């Protein structure tokens, strides 16, 4: 069902946890649908110095969170915003069709955290969308 890469990231997820002095925090998904991703970032000079995540969800939700955090760590905010769910999926050697929404959540979680950072810096960023279980 899952690729070896997905299993490996599920078994040994990278960047799990919180960042106490994070200056960017984003959360997407909802408990009713069965998956929530929360991303913490420490951004300095527009570069993501550190990123951590907490996820409630299935194996794919945990693996995509892990992979997405790895992919944006050390990147600039603009580079991180370009991360697509497709890139996360490819990095994990694919996902089963019914799990693609997990990679979408991972992409959105990154964006949500960065949007939070921008809001904190006085930028005019629209609110995150409401989540419904139509993945």
């Amino acid at each position, binding site marked *: 069902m899952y690729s070896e890469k997905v*299993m490996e990231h*599920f*078994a040994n*997820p990278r960047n*799990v946890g*919180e960042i106490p002095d994070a200056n960017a925090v984003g*959360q997407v998904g909802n*408990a*009713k*649908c*069965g*998956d*929530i*991703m*929360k991303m913490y970032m420490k951004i300095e000079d527009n570069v993501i110095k550190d990123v951590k995540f*907490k*996820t*409630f*969800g*299935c*194996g*794919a*939700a*945990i693996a995509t969170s892990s992979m997405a955090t790895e992919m944006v760590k050390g990147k600039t905010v603009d580079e991180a915003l370009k991360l697509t769910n497709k890139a996360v999926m490819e990095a994990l050697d694919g996902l089963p069709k*019914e*799990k693609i929404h997990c990679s979408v959540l991972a992409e959105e979680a990154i964006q949500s955290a960065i949007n939070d950072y921008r809001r904190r810096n006085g930028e005019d960023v629209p609110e995150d969308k409401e989540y419904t*279980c*139509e*993945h």
Partner: protein
Amino acid sequence: MDNNATTSLKKEVLDAMIPYYTDIYGNASSKFYKVGRDAEQALYKMRESVAKSINAPNVNEIYFTGSGCEADNWAVKGAAMANRKKGNHIITTKIEHHAILNTCEYLERHGFEVTYLDIDEYGFVTPEQVESAIKDTTILITIMTANNEIGTIEPIKEIAEVAKRHKVIFHTDAVQAIGHMKIDVKDLGVDMLSLSAHKFHGPKGVGMLYIRNGIRIDNLIHGGGQERGKRAATENLAGIAGLAKALEIAVTDLDKNVAHCKKMRDRLIKGIRDNIPYCRLNGPEDEGRMCNNANFSFQYVEGESILMMLDMNGIAASSGSACASGSLDPSHVLMAIGLPHEIAHGSLRLSVGEDTTEEDVDYVVSVLPSVIQRLRDMSPLYEGVE
């Protein structure tokens, strides 16, 4: 730890099957030569054995099918089609297996009306609920003997009395129950009963429908004259031999197995409760719970992740979470007992069997708390809970 899903094939059962793949390969319908007649005679003996095992008064009330699912489909569609001049109303519950629920939904699309009875927080339906749902147009009541997810044992005998009083056909899906409780069709008073061999250490791909003499249902599978013209297809003699043998053993060893499963189940439930906070047992506490089933919800975590981590530790289990089932909603059974979505997503079904040992149970109890803790430590819902 997933014996509600399937069970291992017993050596004695396999031994009983092999002759029908080798020497006695005849078609039970080919009566004009010896190997065919041998098959026919063997089939009669198997039918006799099954009738005896479930205490069916007549051998010709036993009909072999290709699965428990087929038996359920046949019972419901067959009774509906044969009685549609009398009425179009069917009564069932919200927690039936999909073999019943999806069949009922299919019939709704073809003009039948179905009442899906609510169940209480433990999964029980009452005979009174059934009685008050009966209308002039009711032609069939179908309610499972025991629930496959949360182990609730329904009051089948009492419901059968209600059905009888109102002259409505009563079918019960006993697929999960066989081998875990006494099943006596005469004592229960049911008109039809389904079972599936692989749930009690028999082979996959063979089931049975008991149809009490006098109950008329349409065919599901049309073709040749097998099963007294009621179910076409060359008999799966080896499979039926396996079903008959497995059932015979299940009935003989019933008391011993029930006692063993109960002991393992209770050890498991106690071990989990003592070691994992924020968990709830889904289904009845003890009375009215199947001897082999334990179903828990663990707050703040998701079921598929639990299954994957258990699998990495060599433990096979099952979950009612949406992710685990590949659908958007968690299990219909967990929804029906009133669990909120997020609690249902964190469900885990562990089902023991006669070959489950105390060591197996203790191993699960040693692994599960750390699995749940690890996932909770990863879960944003758990923040601030500790």
